[in-house]
């Protein structure tokens, strides 16, 4: 991507705050002029005061100098503030855009992009752009302006002297370019080493108990020492180059002053040079080299900001979820949902669903049954358009789901996923997440129906706070809360992915009651693992290796004597092995049957 395009995009972000930014850039002019004026004023003092031994002239120019210094400081403050302000505004804006962008990305993006990478876009990359402003790297403009203006001024003051002394500058420029190239590779190496050391630490500190249990502490220490030593060696090289560049510029300043003296002597012997001019030159050169040194540093900052800028622009240009639709009105679900010849595969992976056909009528309770990987969860993801079918169509009351406004389509559903997710914040905010205008009474009622009153009280009531990932609650308790959350949202269609993880009996019982309450009088699609849920369903869809192989109610499916019946048969034969041992449990099963 060309730098100009990145700049253009960054500029787009800056547009709302153009006024402070332009003012800041314009302020470079007085800042530079006031800076140039300083050696000129000293030169004038020498010319008109020192040499003519005129005390009032000296005092006059000293007063002028003082004024220039104060004005300079004032202009510099105003300039830096405005620059920082517009820079931070830009950063704030970029972050907002990036975050909003993340909300519009399709779920499939998260399948192939590590979360850390996205996080880096919004944090480190934006900060690298911010660095452009806060480190004063934008001052690279000011520095260049200052250097050019100084050269111009010296040229105007005395062309011959300036031309002959500035002979060193091309030399300096070439030297800096070389140093720059070396230091860049050196610093890249340092960064690589640092990230490997931190990656190692992050991992081994998280897994330290495991390392200890398997007696691998010594090995970990050795590996760490290696990373650690490599990092130091990389740094040493960078230090060498850094120190050399610093001293190199330092030496160059004296070389130039020497040149001024030498050439100045010649010119003076021909009477072509005033002493004031000489002093102006020496003073100007004293001030000339600090910006050059910073130029090299700032150049690096600009480079890394450009790299980050490019990543940001690329990220913002990614395809989004297709929210726009032909039918922007609220989708209606009065009759049925139909899967018509639906096939699906994730990315380049193998096909997960093969030509699936079925209908869900309004008010029905549907159970999806089958082995892990049979495609049950995928069916639910296609329904809510987390993904779009590769072939075929899903219609609600005859309308293709792709034609609806996406947000509104999802408004029909509420999903209770297998892996519950709660946010850091109050229980109230978490519980009403699907319906932010729910009253406290609504919430408490739902909590009661889910038998989670005691849990709520223990967690500190509606204002009680959940930790990150709700680690202060057990898995079963988290699931209870998520069921309550779904009940509060009161969706037209409920999608429930039952958890398989082991949960203690008491919580399990509560979960069953909560599930029953949630499913009552509602269209629902359940990825079912509990027998009670399955038996109570209006219709069971049996999936096998991505195909819908059987459907019907429990009894009908048993009569079909197919895969469903075999699943049940398998269980039965396991009992048959020890019928005498567990008569009561067997009875329980037969009763359910």
């Amino acid at each position, binding site marked *: 991507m060309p730098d100009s395009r990145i700049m253009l995009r960054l500029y787009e972000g800056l547009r709302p705050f153009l006024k402070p930014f332009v003012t800041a850039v314009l302020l470079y002019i007085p800042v530079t002029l006031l800076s140039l004026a300083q050696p000129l004023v000293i030169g004038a003092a020498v010319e008109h005061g020192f040499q003519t031994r005129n005390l009032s002239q*000296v005092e006059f120019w000293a007063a002028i100098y003082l004024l220039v*210094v104060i004005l300079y400081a004032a202009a510099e403050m105003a300039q830096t503030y405005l620059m920082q302000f517009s820079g931070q505004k830009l950063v704030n804006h970029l972050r907002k855009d990036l975050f909003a962008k*993340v909300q519009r990305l399709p779920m499939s993006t998260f399948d192939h992009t590590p979360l850390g990478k996205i996080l880096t876009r919004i944090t480190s990359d934006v900060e690298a752009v911010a660095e452009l402003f806060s480190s004063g790297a934008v001052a690279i403009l000011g520095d260049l302006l200052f250097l050019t203006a100084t050269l111009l001024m010296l040229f105007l003051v005395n062309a011959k002297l300036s031309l002959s002394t500035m002979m060193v500058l091309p030399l300096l420029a070439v030297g800096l370019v070389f140093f720059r190239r070396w230091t860049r590779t050196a610093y890249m190496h340092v960064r690589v080493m640092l990230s490997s050391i931190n990656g190692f630490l992050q991992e081994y*500190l998280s897994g330290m108990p495991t390392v200890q249990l398997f007696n691998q502490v010594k090995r970990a220490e050795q590996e760490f020492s290696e990373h650690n030593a490599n990092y130091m060696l990389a740094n040493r090289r960078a230090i060498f180059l850094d120190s050399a560049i610093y001293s190199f510029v330092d030496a160059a300043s004296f070389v130039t002053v020497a040149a001024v003296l*030498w050439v100045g002597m010649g010119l003076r012997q021909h009477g072509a040079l005033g002493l004031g001019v000489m002093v102006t030159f020496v003073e100007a050169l004293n001030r000339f080299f600090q910006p050059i040194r910073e130029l090299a540093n700032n150049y690096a900052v600009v480079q890394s900001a450009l790299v980050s800028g490019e990543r940001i622009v690329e990220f913002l240009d990614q395809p989004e979820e297709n929210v726009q639709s032909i039918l922007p009105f609220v989708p209606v679900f009065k009759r049925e949902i139909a899967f018509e010849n639906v096939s699906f595969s994730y990315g380049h992976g193998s096909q997960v669903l093969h030509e699936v056909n079925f209908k869900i009528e309004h008010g029905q309770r549907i159970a999806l049954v089958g082995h892990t990987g049979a495609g049950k969860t995928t069916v639910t993801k296609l329904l809510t358009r987390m993904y779009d079918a590769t072939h075929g169509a899903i219609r609600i009351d005859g309308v293709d789901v792709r034609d609806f406004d996406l947000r509104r389509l999802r408004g029909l559903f509420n999903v209770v996923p297998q892996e519950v997710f709660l946010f850091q914040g109050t229980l109230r905010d978490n519980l009403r*997440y699907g319906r932010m205008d729910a009253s406290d009474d609504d919430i408490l009622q739902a909590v009661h129906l889910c038998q989670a009153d005691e849990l709520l009280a223990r967690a500190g009531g509606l204002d009680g706070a959940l930790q990150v990932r709700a680690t202060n609650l057990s898995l079963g308790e988290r699931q209870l809360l998520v069921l309550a959350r779904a009940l509060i949202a009161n969706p037209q269609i409920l999608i429930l992915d039952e958890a*398989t993880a082991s949960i203690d009996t008491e919580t399990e019982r509560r979960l069953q009651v909560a599930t029953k309450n949630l499913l009552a009088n509602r269209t629902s699609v359940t990825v079912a693992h*509990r027998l009670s849920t399955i038996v109570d369903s209006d219709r069971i869809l049996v999936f096998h290796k991505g195909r819908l192989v059987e459907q019907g109610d429990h009894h009908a499916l048993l009569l079909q004597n197919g895969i469903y019946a075999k699943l049940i048969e398998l269980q039965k034969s396991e009992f048959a092995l020890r019928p005498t041992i567990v008569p009561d449990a067997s009875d329980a099963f037969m009763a359910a049957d």
Partner: protein
Amino acid sequence: MRFSALFRPYWRQLMLGLLALITTNLFALILPRLVNMGISVIEGKKVPYFTSITSIVLAILALAVLAAIARTYSRILMFGVGREIERDVRRDVFVHLSTLSPSFYEKRSVGDLMSHMTSDINNIRMCTGFAVLNILNIVIVFAGTAPVLFSIDHQVAFAALLPFPLVMITAQALSGRMFQRVREYQASLSDLSARIQENLSGAQVVRVFHQEEAENTRFAAVNDHAFRAAIRLAKMRVVMFPLMRMMGALGVAVTLFVGGRAVVLGHIDLGDYVEINARLLQLAWPAISLGFVMSVYSRGQASLARMNVLLEARPEIVGGALPAPKQVVRDSADQFFVVAHNLSVQLPQSAKPILYGVSFTVKPGEVLGVVGPTGAGKSTLTRALCREVNVARGQLLIDGQDICDWQLHALRKFVAVAPSEAFLFSASMRSNITFARPDASQDEVMEVVRMVDLTRDVDGFADGLETMIGERGVTLSGGQRQRVALARAILARPKMLILDDCLSAVDAQTQSTIVERLKQPVGDGTHTPPAMIIVSHRLSVVQEANEIVVLDKGQIVERGTHLELLTKGALYRALWGLQLLEEELG
């Protein structure tokens, strides 16, 4: 850990650095005087030592080059010391951390430890390299320059130096607040990243609840907070640096006034004036940097103090003196017993003991099943066995020796655990499986892969065993993770193997098959099967166990074989009934 101790190994390098620094400054001190002489020669005056402008110019060139070399050298030495100390500290802290017990890692978040290992170490390094170099430099520059200025003219020197104390005091005063603002800003950034991380992890929930707008609003709050913190910091910078520069320039203004007067009155000549100005510019930057250096120094002190808190943490679990297990446990398998005798475990944060009065015996080749509802203390029992937690009362004996008397190293060679939520490394499948024994042969690895039923999974990956797993590779399913963890534990060839509900995400049939395989002799049959403790929610898995103990609320309420428990164990029977319903359609 103290700064003086950190410096000790590098004192030679430091002294050399100091020498180079003094040399640099000596050269830098002479250079303005040479320029002064040059101007005097151009003015047509006589100067000592030099007869022509050419010789002065050559002297300037020579000194400039020498000064550059000496300066480079001094920086390399001093900054190098900082980097070496950084390495030492990082290594020492890591080694220390690796001795600390799991309870430490439960209390401290990895993020917190990482910030010790990154920003605190960085502060310490800055303090040992950058700050030391600059403090020495400032002292040398002022000690060298001030007398020279006074030797030119007392009055002018006094006037010229007048603003400098002011510069230093202001810098010092502002840098403290600046530090504060930097911290505020950094805290706001870490809030920001926490918020983003949470949003990313909950991406699907956000979408199904169509809360995108609400999320944007929530984000705006932290984002704007970060903006305000950044602006507050910017304001400090905006005032601080121009102010510092202005004060430096004030010195030049005062010199123009007082020095100009002296030139007019003939006390000093023009060359002297130019020299004084040049020297003032040399002083300006060190003076300005002093404030910064002071804040770097105080930050370094603070970070070292934080680090020391970490270093003072003592391991909660300390090993005994009994060395390698082979001296304790004879190689013939059936001669050792693992015995728990009236065991109680109490964790520091809980009021009641998690386990009490637990007793059992396991022999090699035998299986002890541990079942019970969530929260009964099953995992705590396994943690006590490998000394992740301390036993409060009672004893755990292996071959008659209390496990507290064993060296930790020896005990951990003896025991291996496969937990239900195992920590796997972002490395290849192979290096995860061979974690405990990196030198295991290909055959051995394939053998355990087969035992835990991973062969099909491994064949399914493009790179087989070399497939990277975790963040930088493929994401394993819960069942695959558990089986990798189990393979890792088996390959460690422990004498006692603990399965802590480690196949809960694998179907019941496969789980039973795997457990059956574990009871067979390993490899060529020379290794007898280990003593096994199997904790499981699935009762079918422990059905064949030699003994099953049913834990409830920290104690053993029922015990016996499967058959015995079905007839006489009320809790066990209840659990079994529930289990059957659960497993029907798994």
